């Protein structure tokens, strides 16, 4: 945690709410994204990811609360706030009748100081040199995704918001984009916000993940955090005789024991495992195998949000 205290806040959501009609869509989001981190915005469809992103970039009005970008309110100082942001909101939609290059020129003309060289630089960063003079209407979804990232990067923003950035990319494209996003965060100190419902994707490229469900932030997880010593793990031990071992462990473990086919299962802390094994051996019980179930992010995710329900 100490590491993050040093890096400054790039974007801050303050009790952010959105009500459409009388229906609350976003029910008060409070979190911040720091410079140099990749923040995953995770949630099932309909949870409010895109609505939140639209509020972050001023496409829709904020009912209550605020979004502060580099300290500036998107509500009160739109230009001051948005100039630090590059974004793709939902699909990377481009002018189909213009070439990739001319699409980028459109956005380059809308901000100060984006040179031809900068456009070329961005194009090669996303690997679109070959197709850049073709009409964007002929691009595959993956190519449009790259062009979308290119337009978001043109003006060198300090915050990059990408809605489902790996959508439509092939595995090698996904790897490249992931590498590139990590690079931006680590080398250029850009704060990257990546929304996704693809857990494995987000796990691989994010430092932290905010989980949103029904318009509420239900958890923020550090992805690369040191393993929590206090966390209970699911441990499976293959033993013989099964019944003796069960009876012994039932008396000694507070959480109880589950019996499978040849296996006993139990929820214990990592540091308890050696002692349990020693005790079992002392009891004359044969141990054929031990496996510890790694709780993946996917499990955490489903634990957190339960079923994919939309209110």
């Amino acid at each position: 945690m100490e590491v993050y205290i040093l890096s400054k806040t790039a974007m801050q959501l303050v009790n952010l709410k959105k009500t459409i009609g009388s229906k609350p869509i976003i029910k008060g989001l409070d979190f911040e994204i720091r410079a140099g981190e990749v923040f995953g915005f995770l949630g099932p469809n309909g949870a409010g990811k895109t609505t939140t992103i639209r509020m972050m970039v001023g496409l829709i009005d904020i009912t209550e609360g605020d979004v502060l970008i580099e300290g500036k309110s998107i509500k009160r100082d739109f230009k001051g706030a948005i100039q630090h942001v590059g974004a793709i909101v939902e699909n990377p939609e481009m002018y189909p009748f213009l070439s990739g290059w001319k699409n980028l020129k459109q956005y380059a003309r809308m901000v100060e100081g984006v040179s031809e060289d900068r456009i070329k630089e961005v194009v090669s960063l996303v690997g679109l040199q070959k197709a850049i003079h073709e009409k964007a209407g002929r691009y595959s979804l993956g190519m449009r995704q790259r062009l979308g990232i290119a337009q978001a990067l043109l003006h060198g923003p300090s915050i990059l918001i990408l809605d489902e950035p790996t959508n439509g990319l092939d595995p090698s494209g996904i790897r490249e984009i992931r590498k590139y996003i990590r690079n931006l965060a680590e080398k250029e100190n850009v704060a990257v916000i990546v929304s996704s419902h693809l857990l494995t994707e987000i796990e691989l490229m994010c430092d932290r993940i905010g989980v949103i469900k029904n318009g509420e932030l239900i958890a923020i997880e550090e992805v690369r955090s040191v393993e929590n010593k206090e966390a209970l793990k699911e441990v499976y031990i293959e033993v013989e005789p099964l019944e003796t071992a069960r009876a012994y462990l039932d008396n000694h473990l507070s959480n109880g024991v589950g019996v499978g086919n040849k296996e006993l299962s139990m929820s214990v802390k990592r540091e308890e495992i050696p002692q349990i094994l020693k005790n079992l051996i002392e009891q004359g019980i044969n141990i054929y195998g031990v496996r510890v179930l790694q709780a993946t992010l996917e499990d955490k995710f489903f634990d957190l949000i339960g079923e994919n329900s939309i209110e």
Partner: protein
Amino acid sequence: MSNLLNLIWNEQIKLYAKKATWVMFAALLIVAIGGGIITKFFGTESDFKEYGDDWQAELQAENAQLTAEMEEEEFAGFMNEMTIAENIYHIENDIKPQPYDGWEYVLENSFLTSVISLFTIIVAAGIISSEFKWGTIKLLLIRPISRTKILLSKYLSVLIFAFTLLVFLLASSWLVGAVLFGLNGLNPMVVQDLMPGYVQNDVIGEIVKSYGFSLVTLVMMATFAFMISAIFRSSGMAIGLAIFLMMAGNAIVAFLSQYAWSKYILFANTNLAQYTNGMEPVIPGMSMTFSIIVLLVYFVIFIAASWAAFTKRDVAGN
């Protein structure tokens, strides 16, 4: 400011990157050339007749012949009467008739401004709604530029487009006219049959007036289509409504003219030519000043509604 120019430049690039825009220019050119050819080869012979020094006698001989024709064939009546009246005007005012020329062709083509109105409506209707259709509106509105400025750049782009079409129509008509009919000088006088009778004016002045008055309808209907496009984000609705109203406008006014408030209808006021050359306005009691004020009020309402819809509303969903 450079900001706004860049935005307008962007809009023009998008506009001219589309084939439909070039089709509009091609259509105008084809009509200008086609109209010229039809006038040249199927026009009335007397229009192209060159008169000598003794033109008064020639005109009188013509009139005598026309009168004789009318006695023989009754149906020739109306056309002949007009020619006779025109000839008499020339003789009485000592104006030597000049053959039909390129300038007159330009003047006659002022009716094509309604085609320009149509094209401008189509462009105005699409310039906002298309961004929503393509989804690019989301990329457009997340730049450090106010929505007001983006809206302004789009509106100005529509006017620039209309102006470009207008210049194109004038230039192509003049060229076609000059090639096919020649020119009677730099700014020849032209005799026109207007409501109160025949009048003589310099042709450039008449061209400016005639095209200028038609611009009123053009700007009002384009602004209307722009507003519908901004409010409903649908080009089909904007095109349909604007064209329907443009076509049916006069009929609506005629239908409602029995009511006193009908003079406040937009279409009762778009034809400012009704106050020139001693003509009577459609509804008694209207004046040029009245119409200009009514037009301005409509204009402000259209612009304000477009602005409110474009700057205040959420850009959500597709």
